[in-house]
């Protein structure tokens, strides 16, 4: 099975290939959704924002610099949309819905531990919580987060480190 590079898929999609468009979509749609969810913390809002953003990104695909990685470029567009939605909805609490869609949590995390972690995440400041969410929910590395948030990599790393320290402290205090 041939694995096409992102740039090839972009070129194919722009040339009218539905297969290329579908493959590019399949490759990055989950990441787009998780990026939106990481920022918004709300499934319905993430559904809307991620759809809008990925459609928008594919609508301006000709602007994509094929020499660069696709995922951070898409994530930046999604994040901008999510931040706009976040501001508009005046959302202040993220990481909601402890049991979305009725899916049972994985056995590795007991309900109690999971809820405790959710609660701890909510207590973080926006800037720290979003960095944590993008890292662990969105599965972006620090350089990608830096590009998404338009921050220096060092700032992202320090925020992530402080956030994890704060989370650990919160969980320890609660014991």
């Amino acid at each position, binding site marked *: 099975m041939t694995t096409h590079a992102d740039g090839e898929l972009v070129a194919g999609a722009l040339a009218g290939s539905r297969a290329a468009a579908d493959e590019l979509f399949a490759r990055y749609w989950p990441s787009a959704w998780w990026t939106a969810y990481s920022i918004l913390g709300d499934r319905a809002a993430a559904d809307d924002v991620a759809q809008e953003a990925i459609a928008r990104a594919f609508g301006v695909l000709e*602007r994509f610099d094929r020499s660069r990685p696709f995922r951070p470029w898409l994530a930046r567009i999604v994040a901008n949309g999510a931040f706009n939605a976040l501001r508009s909805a005046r959302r202040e609490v993220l990481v909601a819905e402890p049991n979305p869609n009725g899916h049972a949590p994985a056995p590795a995390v007991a309900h109690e531990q999971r809820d405790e972690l959710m609660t701890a995440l909510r207590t973080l400041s926006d800037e720290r919580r979003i960095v944590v969410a993008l*890292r662990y929910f969105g599965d972006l590395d620090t350089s990608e987060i830096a590009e998404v948030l338009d921050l220096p990599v060092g700032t992202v790393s320090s925020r992530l480190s402080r956030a994890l320290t704060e989370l650990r402290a919160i969980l320890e205090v609660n014991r």
Partner: protein
Amino acid sequence: MSGIEDRLRDLARSISGPTDEVTAAAKERVRDVLGVASIEGDGEERPPTRRRRIGKRGLLVLAGAIVAGSATAGAISTLGGGGSSPVACQVFPDRGAGPQQLAFYEPAARVDDAGDAVIAWVARGGTVQAVSRVASGGWQAPRAVSGQLPTRYLPYSLALVMGSQGQTTLGWTSKDTSLVDWSPGAGWGSPTRLSARKADTAPQIAPVLSLNSRGQGAALFSAAQDVTYGSGGGASIAGMFPVLVRREPGGPWRTVLSLSGQNAAGISASRARASSWFFVPQIVLDEDATTSILGSGAGVAYARLSPGGRRLAYQQVQSEPGPGRPVLGVDMRGNALGLWMRGTNLVAGTLGAGEGRWRSSIIANPGLYDIFLDFAMNEEGDAVVVYRARARRVPGPRFPARSPTARPDRVIEALTYSAATRSWSRPTRLSPLGTAVNKPRVAIDAQGNATVAWVEGPNNGHGVTRIMVARGAGGRWSSGSALSAPAPDPLAPALAVAPSGRAIVAWTGCRGTTAAAYVSENEGTAWTAPRVIG
């Protein structure tokens, strides 16, 4: 630290990702914007489009085609009604832009009583092109009125206003916002650059222009800023804010107000909040040189500014979110009429001259949030509004085969407003049931006679599409008639009506295997056969 990291990863794994339904819907939207979508029953992949090199002499136009700088540039020929069978051409084949994207690129047109007229569009080569006509003369050769625009920042639409003596201002936003003037005597001037912008993902939304009868002008455009999100600094993300500029007749543009960090109308209220406006506010430069502003976003708000930018009036006319861009008109006596959305309801508000507060009521339920609202008002205050509504009792395409412009469960509806009785007509359906319709445009003459143009057909390259027009007054409408020859390509009409009733419709389509810009005119009786103008 690894313990907490493991727990976070486990937590993430325990949360399910997007549902299959959401994923399918997103996938279909992506196919739509790329032009690789299938309409019902069409599972075929569109053949890849060959990229063609475009020489300096062959600049295909986005919404039409034009040959710039050549001896044939301005040749105007009569196409007539054309053949009945669709012709095949692909607009912008090397941009990779699908038909859905092309629908964003729309020509603009204006005409005055004497017959002075301007039609403008964005050329594929990266310039804003325009054709003009002085009174009863012929159409001049198309010319580039902008410099070379970055291909990544081609404008999605154009702003065009024309005064009673033909004085015209054309505006666009690429990486920056620029305005250029035209007049019957002096022709085209040089573009004036108003601002730079740096957001690389924001659409290139045209500025909002307004002229009053004294020849004074106002423009509202977006400038870039960094909006700090979150407490304690947070992430710095690019944002836009509106800037209002004004000028006296023939004078330079001067900044009146930067409407940064404020509310839906861009005017400070007690609870100012950054970027709570989502759509470019609408402005009207009144006869007394005050500026009326109506903006929507988290709410809908109105403000009136003095010529110097001082706030004279402010009202939040709706606390609920106002999805979509509002419209605003002010008649020669100072009576204001605005329309905006409340959910899927269309709301009309009036503010009589000298009155302190808006009165609003729901006048229609289009059943959609995004209705492609268009609005026109004459000096007497008579107005007409047109929009794309959900067609009740008409089944939509089967999920997930959805194409936004190809839905048969959409109709064009119109309402008229009588300034004399201060009342709205009931919504009238102008398009047939079961036919995909898009891009409604409306204009009105001094007598209150309205003209509506729209696109009938899937408008996505997968079926016959044509330009339709209907005329009406007092809530009564003619049936729609076709102006253009049927074509498979996406079309977008531009409509202009002078106070005397002289009307022009311009659109883009195919001419053989290349794209072309067309115009049809009506001086009171019938529409002329389409003419190729670029």
